[in-house]
């Protein structure tokens, strides 16, 4: 009963917090409308025209396929980048030698602009989804790496000693002590990674002409169909927001409930 009430309270607070987000979005829509009224439909179609274009696009028979294609690439890239970055970051956090070995590699990966990787990926993979996935992985993995490395380095060693004194195995200590702590460093990295995964995927699709939302953007640009361009951009932003608030934010709230548990009612988010 108490758990149900706590769950209801939490859902209420989560939804209520949405109003602040909606207010921000409406401010942006107002600025967009003002820009449209100054420059006209050809330069900047209005939010209403964009909404109408989205409605038109959603009636296309291949609309679902296009979204699934881009979503598949972005999520695959995100998942590989998060897994690879986290795993290597954990190893580097525990082993000084591994950290010394991997840090320059990560610096190189961060230093090369994503557009450079797209050119290389185009040569390696051609006009396929592999180009987008590889670019997302390379552009995003270093963030998870840095988050995991920082999390392990700043873990509470006294808790580790406590667990050791009870004879906890390394695997059990990792699962109950280190990983929950590292998660608080990984979530900000994953949120950034998830957002950039959509952007990088669309960019790679546009440049490699490999279909998806990027491919549609290229076509709309060639046809000077500006409302369609803004429609696809709005759809991309909506997908990125859905990943952040619908997936990562919920997971974070559920896994880090302990953090806000001790706060007084007025401070709880």
């Amino acid at each position, binding site marked *: 009963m108490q758990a149900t009430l706590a769950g209801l309270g939490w859902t209420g607070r989560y939804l209520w917090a949405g109003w602040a987000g909606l207010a921000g979005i409406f401010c942006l829509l107002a600025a967009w409308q003002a820009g449209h009224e100054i420059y006209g439909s050809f330069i900047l179609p209005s939010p209403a025209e964009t909404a109408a274009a989205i409605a038109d696009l959603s009636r296309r028979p291949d609309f679902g396929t296009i979204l699934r294609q881009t979503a598949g690439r972005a999520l695959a890239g995100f998942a590989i980048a998060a897994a690879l970055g986290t795993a290597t970051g954990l190893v580097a956090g525990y082993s000084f030698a591994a950290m010394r070995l991997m840090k320059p590699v990560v610096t190189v990966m961060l230093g090369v602009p994503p557009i450079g990787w797209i050119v290389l990926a185009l040569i390696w993979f051609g006009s396929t989804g592999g180009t987008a996935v590889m670019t997302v992985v390379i552009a995003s993995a270093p963030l998870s790496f840095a988050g995991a490395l920082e999390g392990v380095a700043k873990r509470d060693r006294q808790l580790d000693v406590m667990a050791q*004194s009870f004879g906890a195995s390394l695997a059990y200590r990792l699962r109950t002590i280190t990983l929950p702590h590292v998660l608080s460093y990984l979530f900000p990295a994953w949120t950034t990674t998830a957002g950039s995964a959509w952007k990088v995927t669309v960019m790679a699709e546009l440049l490699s002409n490999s279909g998806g939302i990027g491919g549609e953007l290229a076509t709309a640009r060639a046809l000077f169909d500006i409302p369609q361009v803004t429609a696809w951009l709005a759809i991309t932003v909506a997908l990125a927001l859905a990943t952040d608030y619908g997936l990562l934010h919920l997971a974070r709230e559920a896994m880090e409930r302990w953090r806000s548990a001790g706060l007084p009612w007025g401070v709880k988010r």
Partner: protein
Amino acid sequence: MTAPLVFSRVGHAFLGRTLFEDFDLAVEAGETVALIGPSGSGKTTILQIAAGILEPAKGRVLGAWRRQAVVFQEPRLVPWMTLLDNIAYGLAARGEPRARRREVAARLALEMGLEEADLPKYPTELSGGMRQRAGVARALAVDPDMLFLDEPFSATDVGLRRHLQNLLIAAARTRGFSGLLVTHDLTEAVRIADRLLVLSALDGRIAACHTLPGRPGERSERMVFEQVEAWSRDPVFGELFSARERRR
């Protein structure tokens, strides 16, 4: 019957400074030994070596017990686990089934004066005293035959300290575990321990060893205070605790 914990000629150094050398100690079965001494005398290091948290630089440590538990100075509860899961931590680490460990943890929590409504709470929602009770409950939950106590009640108020000391004495009598207690508090040592070892801060040697009369829990408060008062007039204790000032 052999002593479950034996130190023979154990030595340890920290950052080039020798803490103690040729340290000998034997804790008999069912006996609680208190190590008392000024800061820097190496008492916590001895406890950590005994509990297997630290490797000694020299000498041999023989440990013959089945299950150990440590109560730390600060409760060291896992912040993302509920009170119940924290108390059950040692049992979970040993692979006890979930239902059984939760049952044991809930029973011990109630014995420690915690309430059922507190069990699903996280450590941030609990008071300092409740956290310390949970730390003691977590140690007793594994049913240890060797219990290490590292200044366990030094951060608690007088009333709670007495309460937790009494709980511990009662648990030691019913369960019969051996114990090694590190403390600054002479009164606590006289209440809980069977034997008292006084460490010197100058060379980390045992400066004095006293076997206390009677059993813990059977000593009257009057006897405890008279004993502490007698020792506070003893030149060995006086010199040891003023040695700390000289070193500064």
